Every structure is written in C-alpha cells, then in structure tokens.
C-alpha cells in the first residue's frame, strides 16, 4: 500500500490548488503526440494554453488503445504511422519546456510502452524531460505499486481513474494511492464526445469526494461548453480530449492553432461562467 507523500506539492497540485482557492475550475486539454504530425504539438499545446487550458494531457500513441473510442483510436493510429513513440513524446516535452511552457504536462500512456522502456528508466527520463504526471488507463490500482514507487522517487504524480462502476472499497484503495488529482470517468464507456453528460454525475462525484480531498477532474464525453459549465461547483477540473481531435479532423491543419485557441476560449468562458 502506497500512502500519499506528505503534502507532495507538484506542479499539478499547485495549479489545481490555485483554482480551488480562487473558486474557479481548471481545464485539462489534450494532444495526441504525433497527430497530425510529429511537430504539431509544438504549436498546438501553446495554442490550447493561450486559449485557457491549464494542464495538458499528452497522449502517447499505442497500437491497441482498448479504452479509447474511434476518435482517439484514429489519432493514435495516424500518430504511429507518423512514427510517434514514447521517446518522441519525451522529446516533445523537452522541446515544449525549452520553449518556455510551464503548464503541467501529463502523459496518458497504455502500460506496455512504459513497461517496455522499464519503469525506473521511464521515471528518470520523464522527470528529466519535464513530465509532471502519468495516467495509465489499463493499470488499475492493484497492479500499480511498482510504478508509483518509481514515479514517487522522481516527483511525478501517478494519476488514477475511477469509474461510475467503482464500488466504495475500491474508491478508498484508489484514493490512498492517488497523486495529483482523481480522474473521474464520467460514464460507463470508452473515450469520445457525447451529446450529454450522465444526469447522475453530481451524486457520483459526491461519492468520490467522500473518500478524498484531492482535486476531482471529470473526463470522457466532456466535449462542449455547456458540459463544462455543468461541472462548475461539482468538479475541480474538466478534461476535454476527443472533442479537440474532432475539431482538428474537421479543419485544415493550417487553421488548427486558431481553431484550438478559440475552442479553448469558449470552454474557458464556460468554466468561468461567462456567456
């Protein structure tokens, strides 16, 4: 059992604490590393941050993204075709940091690329590159102790997901291991934009809240300003991923910087209650 390090204040923790103190909601944005090109995140991550995202999730492409819906699957597949790898994802973080990006950068990677690199080596490389957190969608709490130990040693937050199906004893076990924030999967399903968020979200988030003081970030299906607005007051952060890729798929690459910045602004306004 991994107990949380005492008041471990990472860049993620500091960012979310700032929002909590201000009574505002944070926004977590998404880029799949290598989509549409290896170079694109260098301009698109700053665009997302300019527009109002506070933290950025960087998707490490994987051949078998079993928790993802068709949008992220397509991006992941195209990214692999472009030659994206975990090493390239690490390079991307180094470049973003050298460009002066200070926002928390969080990797989302399936377990095998991490395991293949070696947990210790990954932890050291990610820390040196400037990665702040790691989300592994196919690594439940029971299998995670070795990874947590490796990441704790370098100060990277291991971020866990909880689902609407997670019963209370599991919520307790996950909360005990969680660092940074708790990723609350909004619905029973895979990633991807949805028309509406589930109506029982407030009760579900209250249930999770009763087990942790960590910030709660809600993702899966969160794709529109009205979704973000509906999370005000019940979540610390909203995570928007597939909707960003959807925008990129439906617009020419040369407009992506502008598209993502304006999409981010619309979500920021929704998060701030500005209509």
């Amino acid at each position: 059992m991994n107990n949380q390090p005492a008041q471990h204040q990472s860049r993620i923790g500091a960012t979310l604490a700032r929002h909590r103190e201000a009574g505002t909601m944070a926004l977590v944005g998404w880029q799949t590393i290598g989509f549409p090109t290896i170079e694109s995140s260098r301009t698109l991550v700053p665009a997302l941050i300019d527009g109002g995202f506070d933290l950025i999730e960087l998707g490490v492409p994987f051949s078998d993204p079993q928790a993802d819906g068709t949008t992220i699957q397509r991006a992941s597949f195209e990214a692999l075709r472009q030659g994206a790898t975990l090493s390239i994802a690490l390079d991307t973080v180094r470049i973003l940091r050298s460009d002066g990006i200070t926002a928390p950068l969080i990797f989302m990677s399936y377990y095998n690329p991490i395991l293949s690199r070696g947990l210790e080596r990954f932890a050291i490389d990610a820390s040196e590159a400037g990665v702040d957190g790691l989300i592994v969608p196919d690594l439940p709490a029971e299998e995670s102790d070795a990874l947590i130990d490796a990441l704790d040693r370098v100060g990277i937050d291991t971020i866990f997901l909880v689902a609407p199906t997670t019963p209370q004893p599991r919520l307790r076990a996950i909360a005990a291991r969680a660092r940074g924030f708790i990723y609350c999967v909004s619905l029973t399903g895979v990633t991807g934009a949805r028309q509406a968020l589930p109506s029982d979200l407030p009760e579900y988030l209250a249930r999770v809240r009763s087990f942790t003081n960590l910030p709660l970030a809600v993702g899966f299906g969160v794709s529109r300003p009205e979704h973000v607005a509906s999370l005000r007051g019940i979540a610390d952060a909203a995570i928007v991923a597939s909707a960003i890729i959807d925008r990129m798929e439906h617009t020419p690459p040369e407009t992506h910087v502008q598209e993502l910045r304006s999409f981010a602004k619309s979500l920021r306004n929704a998060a701030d209650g500005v209509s």
Partner: protein
Amino acid sequence: MATVSPSTRAATPAEATRPGRFGPYGGQFVPETLMPALAELIDAYDVARHDPAFTATYDTLARDFIGRPTPLYHATKLTARAGGAQVYFKREDLAHTGAHKINNALGQGLLARRMGKERIIAETGAGQHGVATATVCAMLGLECIVYMGEQDVHRQAPNVFRMKLLGAEVRPVKSGSRTLKDAINEAIRDWVTNVNDTFYIIGSVVGPHPYPTMVRDFQSVIGRETREQSLAQIGRLPDAVIACVGGGSNAMGIFHPFHADPSVRLIGVEAGGDGVSTGRHAAPLSAGRPGVLHGALSYLMQDGDGQVIETHSISAGLDYPGVGPEHSWYKDSGRATYVAVDDAGALAGFELLCQTEGIIPALETAHAIAYAAEYAASRPSSEIIVVNCSGRGDKDLSTVATRLGVTL
C-alpha cells in the same frame, strides 16, 4: 522447423503469489470500469464451480450436446508414415461445431445465464469460438454479438454464415490489423460500455484474471479424458502431448491435467508464418518478450517501443501476437517446450493427415500435426505421442485451395 529438446523437469505451475498469477505472468491490466465486473465474475465462477448442480448441468450437456467424451484414436497409418513413435489423436474435431472451443463456450454460457446476463459478446479469429458461442447462445436463448476482424471475416466466410444462421450478429472490426487482436480490443470496448448487462465470453486462456484460469478449467476436460483414455486403452500415460498454440486454450486444456506427470513431455506448436527468422509470424513464445496486452502480462510480439507487432499466419486462429499467461510460465519454468511450424509446414501437415488418416484438420491443428510427424520420426516405436486434433478443416478449404493453386 525448430529443433526441440523437451524438458522433463517437473516444475510446479502454481498460481504463485496471488490468484490469477502464473509466476510473474497474468494479472488484471484493464480499465477501472471493468475491475468490479471481474471481481463479480471471480466470485460467481468460484461459487458455480463448487456447485454440484452447475457441474452436473455442464457434464450432461457436455455429453448430450457436445458429444463428449471425444475419442482417443490410434493413427496407425500416420505412425507408419512417420516411422517412429505411436501417434494418437485426441479427436476434438469431433466435438459439436467441429472444434474444442465449445467446451469453454458452454461453460461460460451457463455461467452467464446463472449470473443473469442475457447479452453475450465474444471475439473470434478463425470463427470457431464465434460459432461455438453462437451455438451455445442459441441453445440457452441468449443474445449473441461476435466481433471479428474484417480480414478474418473474408478468409473464414463459412463460419460467418454459420454464426448468422445461429442467430448471432457478426460485427466486422476495421481497426488495426483487422484480425483477432483487434476483435478482442473491440469486444473489450463493448464490455466497458455495456458492462452492467453483458457477459464477455473470451475464447482462449488469455485476458485478465479470472479468464485464463476459468477457460483452462473448462478446457481441461480434454486432458482429463486423454489421461483416462491413455490409461484404459494403452495402459500407461503418453510420453509426449503436442498441441498448437495461438492464445493456447486447446494446448492448455490438454496439458494441464498432465502438469504433475513429469514423464509426460508437453510441446506447444506456434505459428511460424513465413518463418520465425523473417519476423513475419505469430510465435510470441518462440520470438517475443514479456509485455501487457488484453489484460495480462505474458509473452508478446512487440517492437522496441512496446508497440504490438502485426502477426502473420496462414491460420486465422493462431494469428495473434499474445499467448495465455500460463503458457509463459510453462515456458519459463521449463514444464513445456514451444516450437514453431511455418505456413508451408502446416500445409504439409494438413495434407499428410488428409491422405494418411482420412481426417481433414483445421489449419491451426495442422501446425501440431506437422511437428508431431517430425517429432515421432525422431522417437522409438515404443513411445506414445498424443496430438490434440483440436478442430476440423472444413472452414479452411478455400484458404488451402488458394494456396494449392486450385479454383473451387
């Protein structure tokens, strides 16, 4: 073809430190959403397997619906042709639906009904597990959806039609390599989405705990019968048991009841595709390294970055980059030996069995037959080899015809 030096060391393939682990292999690497469903399944299976009513229902249907026990057949002509050890076949090709897959589909189908899950999903490669699951669902009155890689939908057309006749919906999977691996991904996505009312009947000894154990248990009927039949018909245990390995359910089913018999060599035959040295194959135990795919740590075909590699095999049922975690443990512990037979070797094995014994085997099975013929030739006539004849080859006729340059 690789050479073999099967170890006779009696390792203990214990589920080492905690349930669902085979040495370091196995585990539960799945999205959080599924973890409660796996816990529910573990509990339900544990209660069911100790319930005499459940096992009695299974045994009755195994006899009356599947046609068990299947025979153990002395292949005298093949034995004479090979010119060495005595070759016997465990005739799983004579089981209802033409392969061993029904042993597991029946068990999980009965468990699903007992758990009140009326929507069944399954993946299939060659179509044999899909047909078996569709069959059991028709018999038990359960809704059935089968995910199948688009490439396999084309090369196993007869089985697609069978599934539809049996009332199942076949959903072609267009992502990735459009084969078995991608069908499993899509079935997992369906399960994540519909976990509350859906039972996922996995077709091999793969996936997160409890599947590798549960599927092994249901398939172990093959090895238990083989053991009894060997003692009754031959008067002793076989010297070697040989089976093909994709995910590895027919192999684990016949191996496991012999695991504590150190005199019995266990040999698994993987799909060598164009040849293991070409990299175009489906032989993770022969040429892979441990990794996590589909919920378990096991040997896996992957590149240096941990991306899963596309596999190649003439046989859709073996065209899979992973393997059951217990096989990985059998390999590391030395309890079993794993070799590979390439596409050409499998075709030769296919023709050999047709011509010598009047049995048309599945292309998957043909890999084991090819190796068994070679192995038998290297052993004295006093030795006994049992080959798991895991399936019949009707589904493969068009593939074989194409490879032989025949137009049907």
